[in-house]
């Protein structure tokens, strides 16, 4: 960190939208070689501020200085010219194109009228090496992992000569290993003289990598602090506006009979790859079992098998003692299995349905929501009104389309719907993905509440911290099998990490 | 029930009124012009040229429309000619679908027109219905026979004319392969097809005719692709009887000749003298169907007050209702023309009976 002129200086930026002040005279400075975290809840105004810096919005008041010179950024091309690059949360890549083709898209090096792929490819390879990105320039986007795709996005900005990189929630889509690697890349970038603004609401990452943190709440800067002079609790409090407990108050579990029993479950993909490879698992009443594992080791398929969304080839799945393998999704739900799905937009909600319609997505055909062939609007609306209050779903009204609600409130609506069906087994897949600290806390509390009421809870998450904090028992999944079970109080990140990588017999001691 | 129905009708009406309001107000404010007058200047032609007759003649085309370069156009041109000769008032309505025939005919009949022309076989049913409902109106139809006391029907012996162009084709072909493209399978087009085949066979027993159908009268693109197939399979002459669809055949043939293929390809025109439109280089001859003569004759009868309702006229070779145009000389040798004349006389004398179906 140098004390000279900051590379970016935002001065008193104000941006109003109809009915709301998104940014209220926000000031922020970014120094050369600094990683500056921007922390705030969903909807606090982080994205608006960065969109202003990237030229997508114009501020109503305030000014921007780049390298000490006042500038007016009225479109992204200008921002790119000024050396600003943005790594979006949702990648903007052409799937069937190669890495090189994606990177040069829009500014292809020419040799006559032809695109000079050779030199482009060489340039990409050089960049990759310089920053330790380890990307193969000739791979197609559709063939590489999410983490690699993100690196392509980073290279796109570097290729355009960016010195100031904005990362928008970069870890939301990554596995723990990929997060580690991304951190290393970011360190490398600043070491090479780049400056980074990191938008996130994950405190752990901020503590680990950032130099300074600016906390925004409701469009206002609450504080800017040096990372090494603060702690997660203080940051969370500043972000949410009240004290947040990370320590989850859990009493000893009161474990009852087995609710969910999977025995030697096998599932193969169309092209014969084993997705579930003789999986055994048991979840008892009154306990939360966490499934830890690297993405793609059968978590999704496990949930689809239990909930009836995908057929298994062999084995047995029992819920409450009853065989449910390969029954229809509806039969399984009716036999007492609740499911908070992994992807709430894709599976959990019909985004263009109203809140009240979404809250009866699984029960609309039952009394009192239907009478004969007809829906009973009054009952549906009453139900919605009750749940919105009970689960604190913040929405302008029950007729609002869920598409316009924030992620946290969407998730609350799903959880309300699933818990209200009073299932004996609740499956929660990535229940806190993309949520802010306050919302995460409330989701965790609800899972524990269910467990205390004597329900069985199966939690699948890529967030190791979440698994460690919430679960009573941890099962590690690797290549379609449960390779070991541990108690959270008897293990640590390192041991779990090794088990998740398939090296469990060297590191940990399996419980069974 | 009745009440609600009335109510809904009123609402319909109101809605259309709103539309009317939208349409009328805005442009009126902009242009400031009067809404009266100027309504007849467009298609009713110049009224001042001659005042010999003030008869009002209407014409309803089939789906082809008055620019089909075929019989609709032929009929319309006859009325245009009469307009400049005797100053009749004339107007046409183009039918967008078969459901439009009746309302379009009614538009003229109920508008007090002295004669309403229905052009095309497809209008037969509609003409019959309108004629029966309006016994005082005068109508006339081309290509179909309508049994009503106030309708004159004109049909043509297309088989005879087609026979003659078949003779031409049979004598001209070098590959002994000839194509026929029909619009749609209907009795009228069938007459073209069988007459043509008979003519080819009579003049050149070795030649074969491949009949195909485009399925539409208004699809030049289909005509072009069918022609391309036929020429590719070795045919060097195609006779399209398919209205506008035939324009695509001319287009294909012209393109091929320009590209300089091994064999020169020809098209035989239909209904009108199409060499005037597409040129002698590609139009071997045409099977003229003198729709214009029929339209002119019967319209003149109405002007003169001599309209004979219920009459059915079949125009044959003898009446010069069908036949080859003068311009055919450009491409045909005297030998061929003599042969054509010989067959013509045989048909007229009854020595040859040309099949019709």
């Amino acid at each position: 960190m140098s004390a000279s002129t900051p590379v970016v200086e935002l001065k008193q930026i104000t941006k109003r939208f109809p009915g709301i002040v998104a940014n209220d005279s926000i000031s922020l400075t970014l120094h050369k070689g600094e990683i500056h975290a921007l922390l705030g809840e969903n909807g606090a105004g982080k994205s608006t501020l960065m969109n202003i810096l990237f030229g997508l919005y114009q501020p109503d008041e305030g000014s921007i200085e780049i390298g000490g010179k006042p500038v007016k950024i009225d479109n992204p091309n200008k921002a790119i010219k000024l050396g600003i690059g943005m790594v979006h949360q949702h990648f903007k890549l052409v799937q069937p194109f190669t890495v090189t083709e994606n990177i040069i898209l829009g500014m292809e090096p020419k040799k006559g009228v032809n695109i000079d792929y050779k030199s482009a490819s060489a340039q990409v390879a050089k960049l990759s090496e310089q920053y330790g990105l380890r990307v193969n320039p000739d791979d197609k986007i559709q063939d590489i992992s999410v983490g690699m795709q993100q690196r392509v996005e980073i290279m796109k900005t570097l290729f355009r000569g960016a010195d100031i990189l904005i990362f928008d929630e970069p870890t939301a889509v990554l596995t723990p290993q990929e997060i580690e690697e991304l951190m290393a890349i970011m360190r490398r970038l600043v070491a090479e003289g780049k400056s980074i603004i990191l938008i996130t609401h994950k405190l752990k990452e901020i503590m680990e990598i950032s130099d300074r943190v600016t906390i925004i709440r409701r469009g206002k800067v609450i504080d800017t602090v040096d990372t090494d002079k603060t702690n997660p609790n203080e940051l969370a409090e500043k972000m949410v506006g009240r004290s947040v407990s990370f320590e989850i108050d859990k009493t000893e579990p009161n474990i009852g009979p087995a609710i969910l029993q999977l025995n030697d479950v096998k599932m193969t993909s169309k092209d014969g790859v084993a997705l579930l490879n003789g999986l055994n698992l048991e979840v008892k009443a009154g306990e939360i079992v966490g499934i830890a594992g690297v993405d793609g080791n059968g978590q999704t398929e496990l949930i689809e098998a239990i909930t009836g969304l995908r057929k298994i080839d062999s084995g047995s799945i029992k819920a409450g003692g009853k065989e449910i393998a390969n029954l229809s999704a509806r039969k399984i739900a009716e036999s007492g299995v609740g499911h908070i799905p992994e992807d709430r937009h894709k599976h959990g909600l019909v985004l263009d349905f109203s809140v009240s319609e979404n809250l009866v997505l699984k029960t609309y055909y039952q009394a009192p929501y239907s009478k004969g062939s007809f829906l009973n609007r009054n009952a549906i609306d009453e139900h919605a009104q009750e749940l919105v209050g009970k689960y604190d779903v913040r929405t302008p009204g029950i007729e609002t389309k869920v598409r316009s609600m924030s992620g946290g409130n969407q998730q609350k609506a799903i959880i309300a719907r699933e818990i209200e069906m009073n299932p004996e087994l609740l499956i929660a897949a990535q229940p806190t993905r993309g949520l802010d600290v306050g919302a995460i806390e409330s989701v965790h509390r609800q899972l524990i509440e269910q467990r205390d009421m004597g329900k069985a809870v199966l939690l699948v998450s890529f967030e190791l911290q979440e698994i460690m904090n919430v679960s009573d028992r941890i099962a590690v999944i690797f290549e379609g099998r449960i390779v070991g079970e541990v108690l959270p109080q008897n293990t640590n990140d390192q041991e779990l990490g090794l088990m998740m990588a398939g090296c469990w017999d060297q590191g940990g001691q399996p419980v069974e | 029930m009745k009440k609600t129905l009335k109510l809904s009708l009123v609402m319909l009406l109101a809605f259309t009124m709103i539309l009317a309001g939208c349409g009328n107000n805005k442009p009126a404010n902009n242009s400031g012009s009067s809404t009266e007058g100027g309504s007849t200047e467009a298609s009713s032609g110049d009224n001042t040229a001659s005042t010999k007759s003030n008869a009002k003649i209407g014409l309803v085309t089939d789906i082809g429309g008055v620019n089909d370069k075929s019989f609709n156009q032929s009929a319309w041109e006859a009325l245009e000619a009469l307009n400049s000769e005797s100053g009749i008032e004339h107007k046409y309505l183009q039918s967008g679908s078969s459901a439009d025939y009746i309302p379009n005919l009614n538009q003229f009949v109920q508008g007090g027109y002295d004669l309403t022309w229905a052009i095309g076989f497809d209008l037969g049913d509609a003409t019959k219905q309108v004629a029966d409902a309006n016994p005082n109106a005068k109508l006339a139809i081309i290509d179909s026979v309508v049994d009503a006391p106030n309708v004159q029907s004109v049909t043509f012996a297309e088989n005879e004319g087609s026979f003659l162009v078949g003779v031409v084709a049979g004598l001209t072909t070098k590959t002994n392969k000839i194509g026929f493209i029909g619009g749609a399978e209907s009795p009228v087009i069938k007459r073209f097809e069988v007459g043509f085949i008979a003519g080819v066979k009579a003049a050149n027993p070795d030649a074969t005719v491949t009949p195909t159908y485009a399925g539409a009268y208004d699809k030049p693109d289909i005509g072009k692709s069918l022609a391309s197939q036929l020429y590719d399979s070795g045919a060097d002459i195609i006779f399209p009887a398919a209205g506008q669809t035939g324009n695509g055949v001319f287009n294909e043939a012209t393109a091929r000749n320009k590209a300089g293929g091994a064999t020169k390809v020809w098209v035989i025109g239909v209904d009108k003298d199409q060499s005037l439109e597409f040129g002698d280089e590609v139009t071997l001859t045409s099977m003229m169907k003198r729709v214009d003569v029929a339209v002119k004759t019967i319209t003149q009868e109405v002007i003169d007050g001599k309209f004979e309702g219920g009459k059915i006229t079949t125009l044959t070779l003898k009446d010069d209702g069908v036949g080859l145009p003068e311009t055919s000389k450009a491409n045909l040798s005297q030998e061929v023309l003599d042969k054509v004349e010989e067959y013509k006389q045989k048909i007229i004398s009854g020595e040859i009976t040309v099949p019709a179906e």
Partner: protein
Amino acid sequence: MNKWRKIFLSDNIIVPLVAILLGLLVGAAVMLIGGYNPIDAYRFLIKRVVGTPYDFGETIRQITPLIFTGLSVAFAFRSGLFNIGADGQVLIGMTASTAVALSWSGLPSWLLVPLSVIAGGLAGGLWASIAGYLKAKRGINEVITTIMLNWTALYFSNYVIRHFYLLKGQNRSEDIGASATMTFLGSTFSNARVHWGTVIALLAAVFFFVYLWKTKQGYEMRAVGLNSKAAEYAGMNVGTNVVKAMFISGVFAGLAGTFEVIGVFHYQSVFAASPGYGFDGIAVALLGMNHPFGVVLSAILYGVLTYGSAGMSFGAGVPPELIKIVIGSIIFFIAAQGIVRFVLKPFYLKRKKEKVM
């Protein structure tokens, strides 16, 4: 009262109205450039539609099949399906109705008419279900299958009519008996071809609304249409819903065909090409924003423009080609709402500012 005000000032009403206005203005400009008087043209358009009871009746006749096919396309769309095959379903509905009406012409009217209607609807529905089944079981895109089935339907219908019910020497089926027709109020509309199908079309729109928004099955269909993955997750059977939605969509289209036969023509033509009802239905559904009542309104608009266009031609002499441009521009503006919203933007901004204050 306030609620009504809100509804009328909402985007859903203002934007289409402004779109119509813009379309009429552009149409007027085109006519001015072409040398025609747009005020006259629009005046004659309205006159043609509401001028006489006959024309008004015929306009209703024109609108009726548009409501049916519009509902058909809109219903499928609400269930996440793009039914391009309404045209084929119309033909199949026609054919089934014709077959029933001609085969059992001895039955009394009270039995024959309902039987014929049911046959038409059912046949259209089953025909559409083929595409639904292929999508549900084999994952074949319904756009492709419905387009292909259009052709199958065209040739199949023509085959049936030609081989079993052809009126000799004509290009159509025999006339269906009076016992199988369902015209009504004919005298009120001076013998315009008004029929009960219009009432049934309006009832169909009500059914559409109630079914989709008030019943369990409709809820499922909308869920499947908006997010089939979520529907599957919620335990709904996506495949069954797809087939069911296509069936109902096809019933609407089939009924359009039924009433064209037993209400309007009283016979079935052999179609040279696809009659185009289904494609008009796509435009109507789009204009009506896939809402049943919107479809009724847009069908009225579309029907008024189509039927009234002959008035522009008759009264103001605007040629059919230009009329197509005028109608096209109106539809363009409604479909391209983004442009309208852009035009309206200054007004909206003003309104919002007022609200903030």
